[in-house]
Each structure stands twice: as structure tokens, then as C-alpha cells.
């Protein structure tokens, strides 16, 4: 912001945030339908199959997170660089092109649910790779849009103030965008294909996205706590060093059972075990900043953003750290791979590491858009954070209960056979876990409704003194 006006880049960020929240709703809705189908397989069979619900659920997650990430960068970019985003018109054009492409891709998923697996399917319907199922024409479009985004970030930073946060983001975004290319070509050998596919997924979520989140988290800490920029930036570089070590070689835990050489067992085990270390560092950092500032009269300038950042610290630790380590070592992963353990870990890790911090970034933009000096938490905001966090936590516990049954029955007792698969799926305790997962899904959706309500109305419920900045700025 300059004065009380938003930069054009920040207005573009608000558009990205809006679409991100719509897609977040779609993700939850299709997740709920898939959860119902786990319990009642005939539900919507032939109308909206489980495979399609799952595709939309997972891809909506990835796409809304990317939208929110791009939005967060467009929000902080002019503020950090001290100038308007270079190529803002191109940025706006890219936003509309991307949004139209996402809409078309989803409609194709919904209307073409079954068909032959031909070359044209890869180009126009789906590539069939989990998390990045978009057809190739959309892939190429995404690359073009991301190139525009990269150009805007680089051109703006190079011609403005180059802060540590922006420097880290510049390096990270190159890796983030470049890795997407690894998921755009096909090989006939499925083991080789999986090898490259993991480059996109794993190196996104456990390397480049983690660094990205650390950069945005650092910006939020500076904005909400007045944290010392030098400390934040020093920590960012440490994070980069650690994350690229544990993140890149930690990739090995996805190579255990896809036909790659056995030395990946040792590499994957060691570096997967090291993956929680950067999380511990982040935890110490937040604790350190909080400790340094408590009792010094520092106010929290944006309570909702800081609250979501706090949830991020614990959610990331529990989801990525605890639930990850419980089943990552190869000796036990032999039995847990591909069971509901992955779902339990994935749900809490994605929520803890990314959803929370991006919601925090959106609250920062809400405060900026309204020109408020401070943003307090409203009742709806508290209920949203409680319902979504508790819902996700208990959903993870429910999935873990089902996962335990699945591991014992399907893998341990029946030795990963089809008979074992169906015996585990019909097990009473497995189904009980799935039932609780569905119930917690409803709780999360209730929290989402409150979150949207709060995002739309919280600025109108702030105390009068919060508007002092706006009035003063307007008068000036």
C-alpha cells in the first residue's frame, strides 16, 4: 500500500485470493462427496464417480493453494519492492486466462468421466497423474502463465528494493516453476514415469513450497509482530539450506517401492528422518520472536493472521512431522504405503503447512484493503479457526484409526492381497474411522462457511480506533 491506496499488484492479489477461496469450497464439497462414497459406494455411482470426486478434490487443493500463493506474492511484492508491479496488465491477462482454463478443465473432468486412454486423452481430457491431472494443453497454458508471473516478480524486484524475502522468493519460484516441467512428459516405463512425477509433487510440497511458506510466514511475522527483519531473513536462509538438503534427498521415501535401486531405502530413511528438523527450527524461531516481543508493549497488528500462523506452526509439526515420521521409515512403510496412513498424513500436513498460512496471508490483505491500523479477531473468526482446525485434527485421527486396521488386516495378516484389501475395507473398525472422517468433514465445511462470512464482514466489526489510520491517511 502507498498511503491508503492499494497498488495495482495488490488489487490483482485480491482477485487471486477470491478464486482461491471459491476453489477451497469446491475442494471441500468434492471431498465430502468422496467421503460419503467410501461408506456408501453406490452413492452417485454412474453420475459422479468416486474417481472424479477424488480428482477434483485433490486438484482443487493444489490449484487453490497455487492461486493463494501467487496472490500472496502479488500482495507482498509491491510492498517489499517499494514500487508497482512491472507488467501488471500482463499479470491481469494471465489471471483471466488461468481462471478460464481451470474452469474448462474442471468441466471436462465432470462431463467426460469415462473413456479410452489414448494420446488425445492426455492432450484434452486428463494426464492421469495424481495431483497434476490437468491435460497437456492446460499444462502448456500453466507454464505460460507462470512465466508471466516470474517475469513480474523478477522485473519488479530488480527495479525496486531487493529485500531478503524477495531474494529467497526469486530463487524459490524458479525451482517451483521449473519442477512443473518434470510432470509434462510421458515415458512408457511406469517406474521411470513415477520417478519424474515425484519430482513435481514431492519437490513442490517438501522443498519449494516449504521455502515459499517460510518467506511468506516471515513477511507475516514482520507485519503482525513487527519482528526484526534481519532475524527473519537470516532464518529464511538457514531454512533454505536445510530444506533443500532434507527436502531434495528426503524424496527418497517415495522411491522405496517403484522399482528404483535399493540404496534409496537408506537415503530415503535418513533424509526423511531429518525432514522435521527445519520444522523444529521454525518452531524455535516463532517462539524466539514471541519471547523477545512479549512484555515489550508490542501489539499483534493482525490477530487473525497471527492466529492462523500459530496454527501453522503446530499443524505443520503434527501433520508433516509426527504423522510423517510414524510411517516413513522403509521397514514400516513396506506395510503402510498406499494405505489410509498416507491420507491421514496428507490431510493434516497440507492443512498445517499450507492452508493455514495462506489463510493468514488473505487476512493480511483484508486488513490492507480496508486500510485498518489493526485487525482484531471476531467471534466468527474464532469459531472458524476452531471448527476447521479441530475438524482437520480429528479427521486425521479417524483416518489413522482406519489406517491402522488397514495395515494390520490388509498388509500384515493377508500380505497385501486383493482378499486382504477387501477384508480390510469391510472391517467394522475401518468403517467406523471412515464414518468419523465424514462427520469431521461436515465440521470443516461448517468452519469454512464461517471463515468466508468472517472474511467478508470482519472489517465492519472492528472497534472505532482501528480506523484511525484510515481516517488519518484519508485526511492527509
Amino acid at each position: 500500500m502507498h498511503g491508503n491506496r492499494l497498488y495495482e499488484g495488490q488489487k490483482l492479489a485480491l482477485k487471486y485470493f477470491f478464486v482461491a477461496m471459491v476453489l477451497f469450497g469446491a475442494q471441500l464439497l468434492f471431498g465430502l462427496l468422496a467421503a460419503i462414497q467410501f461408506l456408501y459406494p453406490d452413492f452417485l455411482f454412474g453420475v459422479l464417480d468416486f474417481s472424479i470426486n477424488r480428482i477434483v478434490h485433490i486438484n482443487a487443493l493444489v490449484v487453490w493453494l497455487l492461486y493463494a500463493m501467487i496472490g500472496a506474492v502479488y500482495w507482498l511484492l509491491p510492498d517489499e519492492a517499494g514500487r508497482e508491479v512491472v507488467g501488471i496488465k500482463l499479470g491481469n491477462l494471465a489471471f483471466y486466462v488461468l481462471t478460464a482454463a481451470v474452469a474448462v478443465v474442471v468441466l471436462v473432468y465432470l462431463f467426460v468421466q469415462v473413456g479410452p486412454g489414448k494420446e488425445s486423452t492426455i492432450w484434452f481430457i486428463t494426464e492421469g497423474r495424481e495431483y497434476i491431472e490437468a491435460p497437456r494443453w492446460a499444462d502448456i497454458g500453466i507454464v505460460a502463465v507462470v512465466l508471466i508471473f516470474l517475469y513480474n516478480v523478477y522485473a519488479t524486484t530488480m527495479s525496486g528494493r531487493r529485500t531478503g524475502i524477495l531474494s529467497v522468493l526469486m530463487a524459490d519460484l524458479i525451482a517451483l516453476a521449473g519442477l512443473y516441467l518434470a510432470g509434462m512428459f510421458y515415458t512408457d516405463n511406469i517406474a521411470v514415469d513415477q520417478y519424474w512425477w515425484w519430482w513435481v509433487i514431492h519437490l513442490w510440497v517438501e522443498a519449494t513450497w516449504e521455502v515459499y511458506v517460510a518467506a511468506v510466514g516471515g513477511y507475516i511475522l514482520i507485519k503482525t509482530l513487527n519482528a526484526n527483519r534481519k532475524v527473519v531473513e537470516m532464518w529464511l536462509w538457514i531454512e533454505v539450506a536445510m530444506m533443500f538438503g532434507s527436502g531434495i534427498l528426503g524424496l527418497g521415501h517415495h522411491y522405496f517401492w517403484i522399482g528404483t535401486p535399493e540404496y534409496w531405502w537408506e537415503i530415503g530413511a535418513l533424509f526423511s528422518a531429518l525432514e522435521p528438523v527445519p520444522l523444529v527450527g521454525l518452531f524455535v524461531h516463532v517462539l524466539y520472536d514471541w519471547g523477545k516481543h512479549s512484555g515489550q508493549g508490542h501489539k499483534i497488528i493482525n490477530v487473525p493472521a497471527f492466529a492462523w500462523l500459530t496454527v501453522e506452526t503446530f499443524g505443520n509439526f503434527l501433520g508433516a512431522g509426527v504423522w510423517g515420521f510414524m510411517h516413513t521409515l522403509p521397514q514400516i512403510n513396506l506395510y503402510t504405503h498406499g494405505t489410509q496412513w498416507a491420507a491421514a498424513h496428507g490431510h493434516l500436513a497440507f492443512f498445517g503447512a499450507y492452508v493455514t498460512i495462506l489463510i493468514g496471508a488473505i487476512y493480511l490483505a483484508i486488513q490492507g484493503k480496508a486500510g485498518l491500523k489493526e485487525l482484531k479477531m471476531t467471534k466468527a473468526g474464532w469459531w472458524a479457526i476452531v471448527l476447521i482446525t479441530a475438524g482437520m485434527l480429528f479427521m486425521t485421527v479417524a483416518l489413522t484409526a482406519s489406517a491402522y486396521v488397514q495395515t494390520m488386516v490388509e498388509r500384515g495378516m493377508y500380505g497385501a492381497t486383493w482378499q486382504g484389501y477387501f477384508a480390510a475395507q469391510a472391517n467394522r473398525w475401518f468403517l467406523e474411522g471412515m464414518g468419523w472422517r465424514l462427520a469431521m468433514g461436515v465440521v470443516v465445511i461448517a468452519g469454512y462457511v464461517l471463515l468466508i462470512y468472517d472474511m467478508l464482514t470482519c472489517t465492519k466489526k472492528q472497534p472505532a480506533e482501528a480506523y484511525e489510520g484510515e481516517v488519518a491517511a484519508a485526511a492527509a
Partner: protein
Amino acid sequence: MEYYMHDIPLHDFLPIFVDSAMVIFLGMMYAGFFTLVKLRLVKSYFMVAAYLSWLGLVGCIYYLGVLLQVEPYTQKVLFGAMVGYLIFPHIVYFLLEKVHKRFEHA
């Protein structure tokens, strides 16, 4: 190097999951208590809790190694990792303090 993986008995599944979770929890408790004491947010005798957490962590790692029947090479790696983790919060705190001092007194 030859790699070999032993079958895990069914009755060891639950202890492995619980023990793995404890590894991460105790690791966090060590770092957490250490930082809180260093920042003087809790009494200094809580440092004992930090080092007890680290000892618990070492015990859990050892037990996990037994349950997973790890190779001698992995045993050595785990031992090295525990020593490294003992030092890790000291290094992080040292770096944060130095940076703070440098920029607060600049």
C-alpha cells in the same frame, strides 16, 4: 552394500507407530524447553526437562531401532543423529542471539 529388510511381527506395529510419534514429540519438547529457558520465559530448572526429553528421545530411537531390526550401519547413523540433535538448538539459539545483538546495537 547389501540391503535386507526383516518382516515385522504384527504385535510390533502399534509400538512402532506410537514410538515414532514419541520421537518427534520428545524432539520438540527438548527444543521447546531449551528455547523457553534461554528466553527466560520459564524458570531455569526447566532445562532439566529439556535434557530429560532428549534422553527420552534417545531411548525411543533405540527402541525404534530394535523394533525395526535396523542394520549396524543405520544404528551408527541414528547415534550420530542423536548427538547432532543435542547440539542443534544450541547452534540455532547462538545464531539468533548473535544476529539480534548485531542489529540491535548497530
